[in-house]
């Protein structure tokens, strides 16, 4: 049984902070199919369209019938752990710092034998389930997990390396006063966060629910933060930048309006200020500090969460300026991901459909409750995914975009 994680001690500022190292990065281009699956939190391997053979490691042609028709598909993730070893030596810096490290061979029910990281609660010879996760380098790896969940299993150091569990971590919610921000804060506390910093851009405004929330838990701390103000962002980073291990950017500027129904770009500029330049200011202020602490003990800095929208992928013309800002933020997130990857800090993009909050008042259901969105974000962090689609509308649009993106474009414009 996994020993529960011990609450990390206060950082000793005199000791040198361990810098981040990464597990091996190189993969063949085909093997990045596993990375795509892991990023989306699904378990897929190549399956031969002609003979049905499941392929592993990823191949260019079928290892059985030589067909070139190999498609990534969900496959049975169960298997038997037929051999294990515990590494007490490694050629790689990342692993050297984390020894001992358990790996094993799993004979999959689907056919292949795979080498996987092996959870400490898995018994040799027993049944396991495999899961694809992103390791600290952002590349996919297989983890063998016990057949059924075991107590504290997410606390196992090996699994914690491939996930971004909020337990014992400190979280900055950039707009803590919005419905989503408050819900995220609550969900983080429930998930065992050590502290949640609630950004407040409108200290002049009284929001009873916010005041009630702040009074409910000593782990909550209100901080002044206006993402449109570089000084404000820098001030906060100077104050708490060294403590933020998960940053959830809930700041948003959602207003109706397209292009031709206005004679100015003010609304668009305001949306860009918050959703694009705000993200950039936050990244410039908090990113370097998070990178510096990306391997700093069991509460290392792990994740940057952008709450985007499914409309980052497909514009909603009725909210054209806002959609454009979300699309720009999505693009920016790819750059941020590339820049944070060197330290192993994960960027998780969240793509919700409409959320049931004040600026979506006139949007017909179905809408996601802020608490549902927040729970999905926590689970996404615990699972360690990179792209998170939340709600039926988001899932439906995502599927339809794959099927016919022109149909989506026409229909959203009606």
């Amino acid at each position, binding site marked *: 049984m996994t020993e529960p994680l011990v609450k990390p001690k206060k950082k000793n500022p005199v000791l040198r902070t361990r810098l981040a190292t990464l597990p091996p990065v190189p993969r063949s281009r085909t093997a990045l199919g596993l990375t795509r699956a892991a990023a989306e939190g699904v378990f897929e391997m190549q399956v031969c369209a002609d003979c049905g053979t499941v392929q592993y490691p990823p191949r260019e042609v079928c290892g059985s019938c030589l067909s070139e028709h190999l498609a990534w598909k969900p496959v049975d993730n169960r298997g038997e752990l037929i051999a294990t*070893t515990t590494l007490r030596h490694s*050629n790689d810096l*990342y*692993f050297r710092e984390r020894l001992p*490290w358990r790996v094993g061979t799993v004979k999959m029910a689907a056919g292949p*034998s795979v080498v*996987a990281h092996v959870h400490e609660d898995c018994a040799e010879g027993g049944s396991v389930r495999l899961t694809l996760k992103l390791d600290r380098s952002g590349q996919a790896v297989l983890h063998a997990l016990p057949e059924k969940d075991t107590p504290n299993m997410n606390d196992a150091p090996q699994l914690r390396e491939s996930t971004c569990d909020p337990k014992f971590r400190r979280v900055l919610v950039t707009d803590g006063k919005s419905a989503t921000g408050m819900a995220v804060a609550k969900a983080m506390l429930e998930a065992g966060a050590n502290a949640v910093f609630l950004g407040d851009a409108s200290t002049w405004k009284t929001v009873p629910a916010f005041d009630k929330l702040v009074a409910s838990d000593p782990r909550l701390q209100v901080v002044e933060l206006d993402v449109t103000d570089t000084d404000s962002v820098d001030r906060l980073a100077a104050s708490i930048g060294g403590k933020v291990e998960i940053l959830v950017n809930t700041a948003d500027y959602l207003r109706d309006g397209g292009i031709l129904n206005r004679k100015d770009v003010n609304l668009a500029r305001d949306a860009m200020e918050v959703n694009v330049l705000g993200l950039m200011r936050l990244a410039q202020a908090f990113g370097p500090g998070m990178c510096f602490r990306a391997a700093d003990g069991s509460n290392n800095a792990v994740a940057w969460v952008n709450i985007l929208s499914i409309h980052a992928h497909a514009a909603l013309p009725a909210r054209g300026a806002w959609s454009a800002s979300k699309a720009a933020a999505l693009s920016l997130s790819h750059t941020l991901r590339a820049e944070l990857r060197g330290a192993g800090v994960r960027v998780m993009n969240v793509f919700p459909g409409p959320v049931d909050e004040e600026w979506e008042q006139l949007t017909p259901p179905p809408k996601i409750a802020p608490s549902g969105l927040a729970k999905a974000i926590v689970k996404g962090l615990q699972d360690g995914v990179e792209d998170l689609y939340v709600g039926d509308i988001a899932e439906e649009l995502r599927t339809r975009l794959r099927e016919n993106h022109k149909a989506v474009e026409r229909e959203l414009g009606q």
Partner: protein
Amino acid sequence: MSAATSPAASAAPAGKRRGYDGVAVTVPVTIPYVRYSTRSAHWWLGRALAELIRGAGIAKGEVDGVCVSSFTLGPDTAVGLMQHLGMSPRWLDHIPMGGASGVVALRRAARAVQAGDADVIACIAGDTNHVDSFRNTVSQFSRFAQDAVYPYGAGGPNASFALLTDYYMKHYGASREDFGKLCVAQRDNALKNPHALMKKPLTLQQYLDARPITDPIHLFDCVMPCAGAEGYLVMSEERARALKLPYARVRSTIERHNAFPEDPIQFRGGWAMDKDALYEHAGVAPADVDFLETYDDYPVINAMQFEDLGFCAKGEVAGFIRANEFTIDGSFPFNTSGGQLSVGQAGAAGGYLGFVQALRQLTGGAGRTQVKDAKIGVVSGFGMINYDRGLCSGAAILERGATQGEAA
């Protein structure tokens, strides 16, 4: 030596294979190993070639065929090496088969000599070992290793062999004491071999008490990477006699790649597919074999070779090890140079070590490691952990041709 029949399926080759009549294998050379070298692979291979030419007493231009194996020659291949060494061979091969290279080079070269495509072929294998060579070789070993093994702890071959050793010990009854007995015997042999890097005796207790590296692999289960080179010449018996060179004959050979892909983990090698064909073609039985030189990057592979080459049945290796002595003067002379475990693993030269030692045994040039009256020797090779298992296997049955006394 005792023989046992194995129930493993054999894959008889289609048609009748020709023998290796008239082929001589000669001039075993070793360029003394060092733990780390500041030289490049070209230096080691070049020295091996020079030693072969000097040993045969021929001119450089008389070597008209070259076969090369090396992991650290890059970005060059055998082609670039020829210009580097100023050679103009009419036959050239590059064999990237690691531990199977020594046997496979013989197979290629012997047929070329028989066919008249080349008269004198130098088979050379060598690698340098810079302080960082091993890590670089392991991290970029193969696509499957890069995609599906190295990211899992970067343990290199230790980790892959740990997994199959774990499985093998649980299913086939070999214990650490059994592996230890082999390692101790090899060390004993190595103390008689001036080329061996390991110079201190090893006791079974030291073996058992060694620090764990990757369970169940402990320190003395691992080879020490080093720099070095090995080589031999293949020519006609006629030519060898004319040059007054002691030589060995080839009774038979086998090779196999990616054997038993359906096995969930490796517990046998390609020898199990081909051993019946090997002995039948050679006209000898395991009981006729005077000594065995296996590829021994880890003791578990020795155990598999005992079984898969027919010296004992699958699953009976523990009893076989307990019933025999593996030193040079023991009941089953085995890895008489000390093997890679005690000599060192000089990259691809590790795939030549057993072969070159077998040539010494059969030509009477093994010095203090000489097995008395050695007439028939088996050399086996095993190479290339591509993903989860070693893919290449090979073996050769060699026979005494002319010894040093007879040739002169």
